[in-house]
């Protein structure tokens, strides 16, 4: 379970302070499929970064399975990201020098999984997202939809409970976007918690819960 407590984030840009999040209290149950919607600048991505342990809050706290992530060291946060969370980004963020298989295997490399097991599992995951025949292709040789599917396979590589997607369909066409959502739905059926940020109402409609944000607050 994920719980935020008076979560506040203030960015300082020179002399100006930008209040990105204001006292957000949110509870996301295990196995939830939640879409966070809102205009740009409403704080959706900031909230996602804090839940995903990419960033630290200015005040307040994020609890993941009862662990106060604000109390963890950088290494502790890295471990949480590695073991409990899988990220999907709007820009896919694959490592362009590595092929699909190697990209999917990378988180397992950081986790210290043995080479053979890693490669085997990476292949399985690519097959699961429908790319079994493209495992040796570089990101530059793939369409946006395919790249995002590689990214999903990568997010799944350490078998996380939580999948976080920041505009996962924002850079791909509708058809490919629907395919991505199909996969995410499937993962939700497996019992994983899915948190997606989007400003596409159609995409948001496929989630079981929708939260709206404005000016750093969840409405």
């Amino acid at each position, binding site marked *: 379970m994920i719980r935020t407590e008076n979560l506040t984030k203030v960015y300082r840009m020179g002399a100006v302070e930008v209040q990105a999040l204001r006292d957000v209290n949110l509870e996301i149950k295990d196995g939830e499929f939640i879409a966070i919607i809102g205009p740009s600048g409403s704080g959706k991505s900031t909230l996602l970064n804090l839940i995903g342990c990419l960033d630290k809050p200015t005040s307040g706290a994020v609890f993941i399975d009862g662990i106060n992530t604000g109390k963890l060291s950088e290494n502790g946060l*890295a471990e949480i990201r590695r073991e409990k969370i899988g990220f999907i*980004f709007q820009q896919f963020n694959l490592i362009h020098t590595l092929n699909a298989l190697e990209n999917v295997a990378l988180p397992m490399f950081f986790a210290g999984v043995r080479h053979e097991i890693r490669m085997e599992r990476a292949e399985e995951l690519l097959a699961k997202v429908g790319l079994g025949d493209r495992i040796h292709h570089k990101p530059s040789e793939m369409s946006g939809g395919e790249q995002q599917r590689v990214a999903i396979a990568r997010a799944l590589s350490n078998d996380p409970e939580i999948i976080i997607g920041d505009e996962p369909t924002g850079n791909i066409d509708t058809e490919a976007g629907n395919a991505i959502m199909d996969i995410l739905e499937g993962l939700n059926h497996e019992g994983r918690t899915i948190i997606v940020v989007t400003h596409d109402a159609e995409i948001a409609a496929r989630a079981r819960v929708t939260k709206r944000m404005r000016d750093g607050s969840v409405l």
Partner: protein
Amino acid sequence: MKDAFLLVNRNIKERKARSALTILGITVGIGAVIALMSVGYGMQESITGQLTEMADLIMVMPGRMDFETAYMELGSFDERDLKDVERIKGVKEAAAMMAEMFETEYKGEKFMVEIVGVDPGDIGALFGKVVKPEEGRYVRENDHKTCTIGYSIAKDYFDDEIGVNDRITINGSKFRVVGVLKKQGGFRSEVDSQIYVTKRDSVTILDNEDISEIFVRVRDIGKAEEIADEIEERINDNHKVDDFASAMTMGSSIKRLESVFGILQVVLIAIASISLIVAAMGIMNTMLMSVMERTHEIGVMKAIGAKNRNILFLFLLEAGMVSLVGGVFGCIVGIIAAKAISFGIVTKFGVEITAIVKPEVLLGAVVVAMLVGVLSGLYPARKASKMSPVEAVR
């Protein structure tokens, strides 16, 4: 580990030109160090090696031999000095040399050449075991107007080469050549440009019996210094002048030369190290640029679970690999350069030098290259590892 190499290898290949230039920097630096060290060792070996062959020799000259003041008073020794030297305990044999420059003519060509008169019985003391005739023989006791000539006199001085039984004119008298000495070069190159005649013949040309130099061979090389001191003392007593004679052992020359070469080596390495420092800055620069360029990628890696130390390791590995490749290439370039330099010295100056490439130098060079690489990669790598994962999503 294998995958870390793969990852790093891809990154290096991704930026071919830049990586190649960085590697080239290290290659040049390491190559320069190896080449200079190897040539240095070669020079040292060729010179001290030649001196070691003459380690049992003490050269006694009139006047003071002093490197600091370069003061040298010329005089000459006499028979009594020679006899006294021969009587010193530990002296195996002693040879008197009478030397002076005279006009020497062969087939109408004339040169001023140093004519050395020596008692044929003392040839062994003079030449030791190293100076041998290439053809013919040494001058002999019963010879009349004969000479044994140095290699350069035979081959280089005159348009026509001089061989055994040819006749040359020294100071107006005809002499028959009975032998040509082997080429010496290096420290004994003066032998190549000398003409040796019997003491009896030299007296007739020189018109005096002054001894210009005494060559002493000792039985025990370890006692050479002691004996040299005693020689100086005896001759000084004979002439009632302090510092009349100076006796120089080859052993002390070797030591002196070795210290000179030690300094030379350090200077050469210091010069070569400058290129290594430049190369280190090259690596640091490349790695820093690489970190800047890959800010986003580093963020992504962290977002998917890389710890600081994972990132640190990857960047250090990259720096290490680049410098290892540079180091290995540097060894190859260094060996080739060392051979080329020594070949150049041989052809240009006629001095026999073989570059000595020591395996420990090569190994040391590769280790130094890696060390330089990893150290100069440390700052960029730390910078990369401390990057925030939020960079990934910006």
